[in-house]
């Protein structure tokens, strides 16, 4: 009995030792910086040198700042595309489950965007979609009149949607397909048989068997999508549109960069960071909730 108790304690201290490097690094390079934003949001600071206390001035300014409201609106639009970004790979995976000729080839190719990375992807698409780029030339060759009036990335009303389609739907497609495919591989096929016997068509089987069976995976993917939109878009926006035209593709995360690093208004940028923190906390809470339900944490 004593040995068992000792072993339990041993296991506990073992675990802490193993966790120490990660936690130490995180506290120094992540936790402290994230929390420091709270302090600096109450100051005027250039990003170097000394800061000056100004109380809530930055927050007052946020409310009157057009850019902030544009950012929220853009984030809203991006979030609305998330369901599409989930559904399309889901559908493709469901079809692929049944086998498709040439799947190996498709798999290699659709994963390519993920490999290239956001910087290269953003740069190349900003050239391709520009008014004087290959897309316009292609359209002209196909006889589309006024092809050079089309300005996908330069018009506010289309810019954010192009960004959303490229980032939320396209760039994740490869990853999503493979992810859902793996998730579906563990579904018991007898469930499908039972449903078919009951007279269910393909779509009915999809919604009554496939979707519920991998609901955990879908929820997890949902959270990942949120994280990507709120906290991983910087390089993509930077290279694709630089937040423009106007502020049509500005987000909170990008705004922190523009104002903190480019304009040296780090104190003000920190107030944006604090607001972003609130959003991230909500996402994190959602994530932990899902994982708990999914039994990932024993």
């Amino acid at each position, binding site marked *: 009995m004593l040995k068992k108790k000792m*072993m*339990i304690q041993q*296991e*506990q201290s*073992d675990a*802490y030792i*193993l*966790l120490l*490097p*990660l*936690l130490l*690094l*995180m506290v120094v*390079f*992540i936790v*402290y*910086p*994230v929390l420091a934003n709270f302090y600096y949001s109450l100051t005027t600071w250039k990003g170097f040198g000394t800061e000056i206390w100004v109380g809530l001035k930055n927050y007052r300014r946020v409310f009157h700042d057009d850019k902030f409201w544009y950012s929220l609106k853009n984030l809203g639009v991006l979030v609305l595309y998330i369901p599409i970004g989930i559904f399309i790979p889901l559908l*493709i995976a469901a*079809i692929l489950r*049944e086998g*498709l000729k040439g799947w190996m080839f498709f798999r290699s*190719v*659709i*994963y*390519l965007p993920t*490999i*290239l*990375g956001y910087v*290269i992807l953003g740069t*190349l698409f900003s*050239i*391709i979609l520009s008014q004087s*780029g*290959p897309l316009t030339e292609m359209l002209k060759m196909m006889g589309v009149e006024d092809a050079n009036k089309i300005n996908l990335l330069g018009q506010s009303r289309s810019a954010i949607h192009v960004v959303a389609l490229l980032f939320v739907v396209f760039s994740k*497609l*490869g990853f999503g397909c*493979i992810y*859902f495919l*793996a*998730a579906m591989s563990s579904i018991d096929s007898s469930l499908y048989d039972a449903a*078919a016997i009951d007279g269910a068509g*393909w779509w009915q089987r999809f919604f009554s068997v496939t979707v519920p069976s991998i609901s955990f*995976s879908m929820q*997890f993917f949902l959270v990942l999508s949120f994280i990507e939109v709120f*906290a991983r878009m*910087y*390089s993509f926006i930077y290279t694709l549109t630089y937040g423009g035209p106007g502020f049509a593709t500005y987000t909170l995360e990008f705004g*922190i*960069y523009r104002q*903190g*690093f480019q304009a040296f208004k780090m104190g003000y940028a920190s107030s944006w*960071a604090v607001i972003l*923190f609130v959003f*991230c906390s909500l*996402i*994190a809470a959602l994530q*932990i909730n899902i994982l708990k339900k999914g039994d*990932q*944490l024993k």
Partner: protein
Amino acid sequence: MRTIAKRWNPAKTVIYIFLIFITFISLYPIFFAFISSFKSTAEYTFSKTALPDQWIWSNYAYVFRNLKIARYMFNSALTVTVGMTLYIIVCNAAGFALGMLRFKYKLTIFSFILFFQIFPQMVIASQVYRICSKIGLMNSHLGLVLVWVAYFAPFGTYIMSTYYATIPRSLIESARIDGANVFQQLFKIMMPVAIPMVGTIAIVGSLAMWTELPFSLLLIQDPSLRPLSLGLAVLKGEHGIPIPTLSAAILVSAAIPLILYFFFQNKIHMGSTAGSVKG
């Protein structure tokens, strides 16, 4: 396997067409960069989609001449290698603990890691810079590597923990009873079993480090220490850079990730499945 006869699904045709469409969009950017990189600026100005009239090498010559490519690639290779070593050790140690061991506050720590893993680089960059300059880690590969591990490891840890959670505990039980210490358990028993997943996070993690830019910008000013991603940012002049030259630079920087992908496709695809399977 399924016993019902396969019926041709009209949705399949639609999906096929869609997949071909996606294939085109996925391949075109690189194709475009490729053909543009061999055009002269004059030719590019008036012909964007056609193959080069004359295939010229001057854009690549420019990239290689103006960048110490060898040096930058060496720096990237060095930092990414050391970074990945640390990364794998940290992720496996913590992942093993979280995935398999039992201890108090496990849920709290797990949540803590998941929570702080979300924040974007922008939010932490200025402080990271301050800390590094205070403790003398500016302009050093060591500082860069530590920051990279700190930033990328939480997610890698999470992946490893879900993997370790699927491994039966019995594997280490006997070792523990025999008196093996935790490091032995980890390195001799667990990691060999987890090699496939370790390989995956290694590839994903090294891609992330290879293309990382914000931290490199702030922490590395000495040009002899520059990683490749930073070196390429230098090419852009004050008012931009001609597209053919930019295309050449892009291909040079994408070369390594593309080659790695070509050879390690399977490992990478496997990694996408982490966390997808319940329990």
